């Protein structure tokens, strides 16, 4: 079982030729990315980070990070 999870096996999976498998993984990865971003943005805000500081760290505009997260945090009562 351990051998199946080794680097060689993983490379085989990453390069799976079936587009359905690969594309499903891409979509799931995007969702994982969104969840991790949400987690870390929340953590940063709770620790007093400014929206500009978060935007700089994420290498995006302040406007885009604010649009994506500020409304949600307001709805959750975590932002004035």
């Amino acid at each position, binding site marked *: 079982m351990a051998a199946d999870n080794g680097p060689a096996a993983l490379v085989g999976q990453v390069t799976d030729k079936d587009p359905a498998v690969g594309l499903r993984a891409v*979509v799931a990865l995007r969702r994982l990315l969104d969840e991790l971003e949400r987690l870390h943005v929340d953590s940063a805000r709770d620790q007093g980070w400014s929206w500009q500081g978060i935007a700089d760290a994420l290498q995006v505009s302040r406007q885009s990070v604010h649009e994506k997260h500020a409304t949600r945090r307001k709805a959750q009562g975590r932002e004035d």
Partner: protein
Amino acid sequence: MFDIFTDAAKRALVLAQDEAIMLGHDFVAAEHLLLGLAGTDDGLAGQVLAGQGMTAEETRRLAVGQLTADGLTAASAAEPVAALATIGIDVDDVRRRADESFGRGKFVFPRPAYVSEAKRAIERSVGEAQALGHDYVGTEHMLLGLLGADDAPGPRLVSAAGLDPAECAG
């Protein structure tokens, strides 16, 4: 948009997502919104629904039946996890690390996404509040928003419970 939602309405939205997660669903549908309203018993919608016999338990039973009939099952949340396993990402491992750093339950994957029908129901609830000249959106407006579409799961569920949408609106 959500800053005009009352506290009870916001809690109903959070509960809708929690219900989806608990049921192992990968999405928030109109059925989950109705569940959120039924479970928010200090909201007007929860009281109206309970008054018609649609308690949280009864609503859940109807909602699960409806979703199953539509071919949507609890297995849906497992699919993105399996998809990530094909590229060597162990979601359980990520979850364990996230729980250690941020506390249990902060990391939710897959976080249920609103299906377009549920989004439209929420948009309609804002419209219902505006039409009534209210400057807030309460659970009662959300219930109206859910009932607003013909042949949507909201009204279908309510009809299944033998409840008259017009009576809810009144």
